[in-house]
C-alpha cells in the first residue's frame, strides 16, 4: 500500500498522497510535511460525504472523484474501494496525467485488497 503511494508521489507535480477510510481515519499516508494527515483525512471524508449526500438527494449516480482547486494547490479525492485516495499536487500540473496515475493506483489498491 505504501509502495503504491510512493509510486504515485513520484509523478511530476504530486506533493503527497494518502489513503483514508470513509469515516476519516487514516489508513496510510505519505503527505507533504506542511499538511497534517489526520486533518486532511477528516477533510477528505467530510467533503466526499457531503457531496455524496447532496447527490443522493438529486438521484444521481455515485461519486467517483472530486478535484478541488485551491489558490496554491490541487487536491484529488478518489474512491479506492476500501477508502478514499487523496492526492495533493502543485497548482500547475498536468491533470490528465495525474488522473491516469490515480486510476492506476486505485486499480493497484483494489487488487492488493
Amino acid at each position, binding site marked *: 500500500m505504501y509502495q503504491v503511494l510512493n509510486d504515485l508521489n513520484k509523478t511530476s507535480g504530486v506533493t503527497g498522497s494518502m489513503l483514508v477510510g470513509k469515516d476519516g481515519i487514516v489508513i496510510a499516508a505519505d503527505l507533504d510535511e506542511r499538511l497534517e494527515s489526520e*486533518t486532511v483525512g477528516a477533510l477528505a471524508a467530510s*467533503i466526499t460525504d457531503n457531496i455524496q449526500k447532496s447527490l443522493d438527494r438529486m438521484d444521481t449516480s455515485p461519486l467517483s472523484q472530486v478535484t478541488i482547486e485551491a*489558490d496554491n494547490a490541487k487536491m484529488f479525492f478518489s474512491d479506492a474501494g476500501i477508502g478514499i485516495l487523496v492526492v495533493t499536487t502543485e497548482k500547475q500540473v498536468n491533470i490528465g496525467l495525474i488522473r491516469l496515475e490515480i486510476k492506476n493506483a486505485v486499480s493497484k489498491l483494489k487488487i492488493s485488497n
Partner: protein
Amino acid sequence: MVDSGKNSRQILLLSLLVIVIPMTLFPARLGLGLGKVSLLNLALEFLFYGFVVYLFNRNVNLGAIVKFAAVTLFFRVVLGVVFAVTIVGLFEMDFQVALKLGVFSYLPGVIIQAIAAPFIMKEPLKSVYEQTPGRLSGFDPSSQEAQKLMGTTSFVVSKSKGVEGSIIPQQPHKKKDIKPETSLDGRNKAGIATSQDQGNTVQNGFDKATHYIGELASVELACVIDSEGLLMSNFTRNDIIAEDWAPFALIHFQDSSSLLSRTSLDSPVKIDFTLDDKRVIISRDGPLFLMVVANRESEDLLNIRVNQSHEMIRSYLNERYGELPFNKVEKENVSST
C-alpha cells in the same frame, strides 16, 4: 427647455396679448410713466422671476432658479423690444425713445409684461426647474442610462467573511423579446420547451457565457449563480432542472472553504466532481459561481470554455459596473454598511 410647437404657439399668443394690452393704454399712460431708465429695474425683475419659480417649486435648486430667471428676463426684454417696434410703427415715434419706453419706462406695459413673463415661461421651462436632485420626475426608467442603474442589490453578512455584496442586474426589457411565461429553465407552464433551452436567446453577458459553454454537446447544464445560490443565468439541455442544481454550488464551496481553511491550503477556486455518468465543475470568480454539468466523457475543452466564460463574465461586469469589486460598490452606495 421644452421646445415643442405647442409651447411656441402659446408663447407667441401670450406675448402678443401682453403687447397689445399696453398698446391700448399707451396714449393715456395713466399717469404712471417711470421718471428714469435704470438697470436696477432689470435686477429687481430678475429677483422677482426667481421668487416666482421658487414660490411654485420649493424643491428647486439655486442654479435652476438663476437659469429660469435669466431666461425669463431675456424674454421680457425681447417683449419690450417688440413692444417698442410696435410703438414706432403705430405712432411714428423715434426708435430710441420708443425702445426706452418699451423696455424700461412705460409702467403699465412693463408691469404687465413683467408679471406675465414668468407665467408664460413656466410651462416651456418646466424641464429647467424640475431637473433638480431628489426629484424623480425627470427619471425615465426606459432610458438606456436608467437600465444600467436598475437591478437588485443583495449582500450577505457572515461571521467568517464579513459583508459580501452582489448586484443582480435587471434583464434588459425589450418589447421585441416578449415571450410566453416561462420558468427559469426555459419551459413554459404547459411544459413545452421554449427557445431558451435550445440556446437561441442571448440577452446579456451571463447568458452569453452560459450559452458559450452550452455549445459543447456534452454539456447538460451551465449556469451562473450569485453569492446566495440564486440563478443569474442558465443554459439547460435535456430534462435537467437548473434550480435544483444551483444551490449545490454554494453549499459545496462553503463546505470546502471551511474545511480547507483548517489546512495550509487556501479557499477553493474550482471543484470538479466526477460521477459514474456525469461530471460537475463548479468554479468561482469573486462573488459569482459558474456551474457546469456535463457527460463524464466530456473533453478537456470544457475546462478551457469554463475559463473563457469566466473572462466573459468578468469583462461584462467591468463594462457594466466598472472596475470596482461588488462589495466595494455596495459599501459606496449603501453608507450604513
